[in-house]
């Protein structure tokens, strides 16, 4: 079955992984300034970005497990973002935040769900 949805999801996951790498790297100056625990979070972010890249490659190769893991990952991201926006802690609600934290995971889930997509992932 020829569909370009997994490739579209690949592009979005690649962008998401890049955002996480940037967030991971951004923690390093604060770790150097004394917030030592931030280095752990920075490394965890980069690790998550690496995992996301692997899952994205799995999508292009039509690995069934990749599709499931990506949907689960994006559902967690989406749920967390909705929770953050719902509680009054002053989380950013600007267009970039909405695009990156809500729209991106939502679009990835929409791209990968459904019977047709399940059938496309055969390996």
């Amino acid at each position, binding site marked *: 079955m020829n569909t370009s949805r997994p490739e579209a999801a690949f592009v979005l996951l690649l*962008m998401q992984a890049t955002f996480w790498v940037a967030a991971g790297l951004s923690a390093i100056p604060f770790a150097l300034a004394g917030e030592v625990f931030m280095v752990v979070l920075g490394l965890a972010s980069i690790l998550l970005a690496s995992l996301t890249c692997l899952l994205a490659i799995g999508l292009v190769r039509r690995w069934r497990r990749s599709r499931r893991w990506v949907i689960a990952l994006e559902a967690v991201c989406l749920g967390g973002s909705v929770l953050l926006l719902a509680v009054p802690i002053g989380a950013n609600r600007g267009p970039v935040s909405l695009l990156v934290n809500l729209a991106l995971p939502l679009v990835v889930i929409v791209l990968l769900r459904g019977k047709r997509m399940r059938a496309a992932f055969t390996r």
Partner: protein
Amino acid sequence: MFEIAPDHAIGFFAGLLALPIALIALRLIPARRSVPGTAQAAAVLMALSGAIHLGLVTTHLEEPVTAALFVMNGVAYLGLSVLLTWRWWRLASAALLTATVLGYLVYIALRFDTPDQVALSTKLIELAALGLVLVPVRGESRPRDRAWYWATLAAGVPLLTVLMGSTVWLVDLANPDAQHVHAGAVLQATNEVATPEQTVAAAQLYAETKAAILPYQDWHKAWAAGYRPGGPSNMPSQHWMNEAYEKAGYVMDPQRPQGLVYANTRRGPLLLGAMFQMQHLDQFGPDPGGPLTAWHQHENICFTPFGFGFSLMTPFAICPLGAIDISASPMLHVWIVDNPGGPFAVDIDPAALAAVRARA
């Protein structure tokens, strides 16, 4: 960086309006069936970006060069979003998208414009479009060098994204506006020069606060009064907060400041000053000293309950894994030690803090 510039707001609305129109227009192009869905999605995103650029023309008429570039960009994007089946579509689209993102970075680096949410979200849309233009898909009718495209996509899009994020961040941190006194802190709007009455009021607030908190030079008394240290104890200074005073909502009461600031020294905590804090976000407190006693609010901080560490949110509105984006309600510090920035400065000067610690 985290606000929408007033002259960019129209671009945001143009983009919102363009999205449904672009989706409907795409269905009216019969040739769309001969191209993959990724190319169709890229065409919609380019139409969106084109509409945003054209929308911005009306508010940039006083800047002819910028307005002309917006027109050229907008028309080119709209044209390419229609010419989906053109032989050189991918190459032309990739070139235009890359040139637009790089052009924007040059523009803000030269300070012709300041980064804002409309510009950043438009660049993210363009980066996503670039990825969709480049990504090879299975069963394409037109053959192309797939390995070259994969390599360009895997290396180029992340590189351009990081370049964009770091440039925007550096420009924003290096050139804060008048309301952003330091990274992540937004200052209360006040008159520019303090009046004689405001100077007297500020001096009175300082004297009353200093007299009220002097007993807390003995940190045991602060502890007995309900103040508790927060955040990492390995930092040069530490805020001690009084939960009861925070909940009670006292407003700039010198007898009951919500927080105390101590320097961490070899001989134990050494009192640096007090901190008043409001209960709710965006509600700045009374400002008797005008510009001398302006409150500040910390926005877009990445805070982690694990280890109580913090960093700043990236331009992509993302925090490191395990940290969440928060803002802290308005606060006003009163420093009782010598501070080059003044007794009500947002922060204590690092050199002054180091001198205090060295004396201890």
